[in-house]
C-alpha cells in the first residue's frame, strides 16, 4: 500500500532487472542500489534504457525478470497507485481540467489524508506558486507548470521521487535556475530523488551520485567529480565532457605506473588510475589538463609530452579557446586553454607540443572490441 514514509525517503534496490520489449532488450540484468536521502542521477543518451528504468520503478511498466525493492519491501508486483513513489513527468502531465490547487491536492485526496487543500497550499508555497493556486495549468508558463508538477509530487512525501527529464522542455537560463531550485528543495524536503537525464552538465550539477547508462547497462557509477576525473570506459570518458584517447601496448610496468607506447612516444599513467596494466590499453586525458607548447619541452619526470603536431583549428569561446592539433600517427588532440591573455596564444598551422602531468592521465577498461562498440554510439 501507499504508506507514508519518514522524511529521509527510502532505499531503492533493483535486483537483476531485465526488461524486454517485442524485438529488443531495453535493460539487461540491472543491479542498482540508491541509498535513502540521496540525489541520484541516471545519465545516458536517448534509448539507453534510463526512462524505462524509471517507469519500472514507478510501476508503469513491469520487468521481464528481477525484483524492485523500496525501503526493503518488494513492490515488483504492485500497481503504480500502490507504490510510495511519485513522478515528475517530462511533459509535466498536469490535469488540464483542474485548477493548480486541485492538481496538487489530487494525490493527497486519493490517499484519504486529511486537509488535502491545506497541504496543497503548503507545497505550492514551497515552489512559490501559491498565488496562482486558482489558475488552470494552461494559463501558466512552462517553468511554472514544471514547478506545479514538482509540488504535485512532493506534497505526497513519497519514499522516492522520480524525475523524468523534468527540465528538458525549459530554455537554458530557466533550466539552470530550476536546477538550483530542485537541489535546494531536495535539501529541504530530504526525499530520495531519482533523476533521469541526458544532459551531463545537469546530472553533474545536481546529483550526489551519477550512474552513466549505456545500452541497458550501467557503465560507471560514482560522485560527479570521480566520474569526470577518472572515467573507466571510453563511453563515460566521451559522454561526460570530452577526452583525448590513445590506444597502444603496455611496454613496461613499474611499481606505481605503466608505460604505454603511442606512435613511438612513451606515455606514463599511474597504476591506480589505470583499469588494466597489460596488453593493449586505451589511455586518456581531459583537454583542459593539456598544456600547449610552441617549443619542444625539456624531458622531465612526471610529465607526458606528445608532439610535434600542427594546429588545424582554433575556436574562441569566451572563457577558453579550443585548439585542435593534428598529431602524426596519433590523430586529433583537443586542447582547452584558458584565455589568460588577449587573443589566441598560437595560430592555425603552428607547430606545437602538448604536455600533461602524469597524475592527470587515466587508463580505460575497454578492450578493443568494447571500444569499437562505444565508438558506434
Amino acid at each position, binding site marked *: 500500500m501507499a504508506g507514508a514514509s519518514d522524511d529521509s525517503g527510502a532505499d531503492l534496490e533493483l535486483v537483476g532487472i531485465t526488461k524486454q520489449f517485442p524485438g529488443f532488450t531495453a535493460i539487461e540484468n540491472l543491479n542498482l542500489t540508491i541509498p535513502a536521502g540521496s540525489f541520484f542521477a541516471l545519465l545516458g543518451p536517448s534509448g539507453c534504457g534510463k526512462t524505462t528504468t524509471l517507469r519500472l520503478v514507478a510501476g508503469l511498466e513491469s520487468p521481464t525478470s528481477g525484483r524492485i525493492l523500496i525501503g526493503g519491501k518488494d513492490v515488483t508486483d504492485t500497481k503504480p*497507485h500502490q507504490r510510495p513513489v511519485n513522478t515528475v513527468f517530462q511533459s509535466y502531465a498536469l490535469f488540464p481540467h483542474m485548477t493548480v490547487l486541485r492538481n496538487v491536492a489530487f494525490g493527497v485526496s486519493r490517499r484519504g489524508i486529511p486537509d488535502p487543500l491545506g497541504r496543497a497550499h503548503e507545497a505550492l508555497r514551497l515552489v512559490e506558486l501559491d498565488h496562482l493556486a486558482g489558475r488552470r495549468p494552461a*494559463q501558466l508558463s512552462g517553468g511554472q507548470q514544471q514547478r506545479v508538477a514538482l509540488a504535485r509530487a512532493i506534497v505526497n512525501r513519497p519514499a522516492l521521487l522520480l524525475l523524468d527529464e523534468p527540465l528538458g522542455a525549459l530554455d537554458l537560463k530557466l533550466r539552470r535556475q530550476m536546477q538550483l531550485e530542485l537541489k535546494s528543495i531536495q535539501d529541504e524536503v530530504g526525499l530520495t530523488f531519482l533523476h533521469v537525464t541526458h544532459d551531463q552538465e545537469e546530472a553533474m550539477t545536481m546529483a550526489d551520485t551519477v550512474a552513466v547508462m549505456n545500452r541497458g547497462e550501467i557503465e560507471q557509477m560514482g560522485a560527479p567529480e570521480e566520474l569526470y576525473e577518472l572515467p573507466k570506459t571510453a563511453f563515460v570518458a566521451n559522454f561526460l565532457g570530452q577526452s583525448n584517447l590513445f590506444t597502444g601496448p603496455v611496454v613496461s610496468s613499474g611499481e606505481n605506473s605503466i608505460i604505454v607506447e603511442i606512435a613511438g612516444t612513451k606515455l606514463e599513467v599511474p597504476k591506480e588510475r589505470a583499469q588494466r596494466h597489460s596488453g593493449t590499453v586505451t589511455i586518456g586525458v581531459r583537454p583542459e589538463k593539456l598544456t600547449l607548447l610552441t617549443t619542444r619541452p625539456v624531458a622531465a619526470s612526471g610529465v607526458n609530452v606528445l608532439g610535434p603536431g600542427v594546429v588545424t583549428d582554433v575556436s574562441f569561446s569566451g572563457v577558453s579557446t579550443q585548439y585542435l592539433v593534428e598529431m602524426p600517427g596519433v590523430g586529433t588532440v583537443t586542447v582547452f586553454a584558458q584565455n589568460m591573455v588577449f587573443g589566441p596564444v598560437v595560430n592555425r598551422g603552428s607547430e606545437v607540443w602538448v604536455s600533461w602531468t602524469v597524475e592527470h592521465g587515466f587508463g580505460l577498461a575497454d578492450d578493443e572490441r568494447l571500444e569499437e562498440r562505444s565508438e558506434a554510439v
Partner: protein
Amino acid sequence: MRRNWGVGIYSVLILALLLIPIGYTIVFSFNIPARTNVTWRGFSFDNWINIFADPRVVAAFVTSIGVGLLATLAAAALGTAISIALVRFRFRFRTALTVLLFLPMATPEVVIGSGLGSQFLNLGVDKGLGTIIVAHIMFCISFVVITVRARVSSLDPAIEEAGRDLYASPAQVWWRITFPLLLPGIVAAALLSFALSFDDFIITAFVRGTTETFPTYIYTAAVRAIPAQANVFASVIFLLAIVLVVAQQLSAAARRRQLAREG
C-alpha cells in the same frame, strides 16, 4: 470602409432558403385546426393547447425520443470504448476494424436499410422497436467513434499515468481524469447521434415492422393529411435545440470571463 452589399444580399438569400421551411412549419403550427393543414385559415393557439389531441402523433413522437435516447446512450458508450481501443492499443485487424467502422457512413442508407431488413427477415427476428434501436446504434457508432477518437488522440497518455502514479485506482483514473477530459467529445457525439437517430427515415423504414417513429408517421400521414400537432412537435424540437445552443454559448462565455478575471 466600403460596404460589400453583394455578400450581404447573398447571405440573406441563403439564410432565407434555409429557414423558410422551418418558418413554414412553425407558422402552420398556429393554423386554425381543420381536417388538413395545407391552407392558411387564421391564427390560433388551439394546436399548441391541444398538443396531445392526436394520440398517433404523440405515440410516434414518444417512440422517436425513446429510440433516440437509448440508441445514443448505447452508441456513446460503445463508441467511446472503441475509440480508446483504436487509439491506445495495437492489435490485429486494427486497420480493418477502422475501415469497417466508417463503412456505414459511406454506404447509401437505402443499401444499409434494405440489407438490414433482409438480414432480420433471414434470422427470423421480429421487426419492431428492438430492431429500430439496434439499427440506430449501428449507424450512430460510426459518428461517435469519429468524434471521440480525435479527442482521445489529443489526450497525452502521461496524464492518465500521472493519475495512476498519484494513488488513483483504475476506476478513479477513468472517472476523475479520462472521462472528464473526453466529455466534450462524448457530448458532441451524443448530440449528433440523437439528431441522426431522431431524424432517420430510410433505415428505420426497412426495419420498423409496424412501429411508427416520428419521421415514418409524418411520411405515411402526408399521403392523407398531416395533423397540425405534428407541426407543433417539430417546432418544439427546433426551439429546444435553439435554447440548448444559446445556453451552451452563454455558459462558455461566462466561463471565459471568469478565467479572464482570475488571470
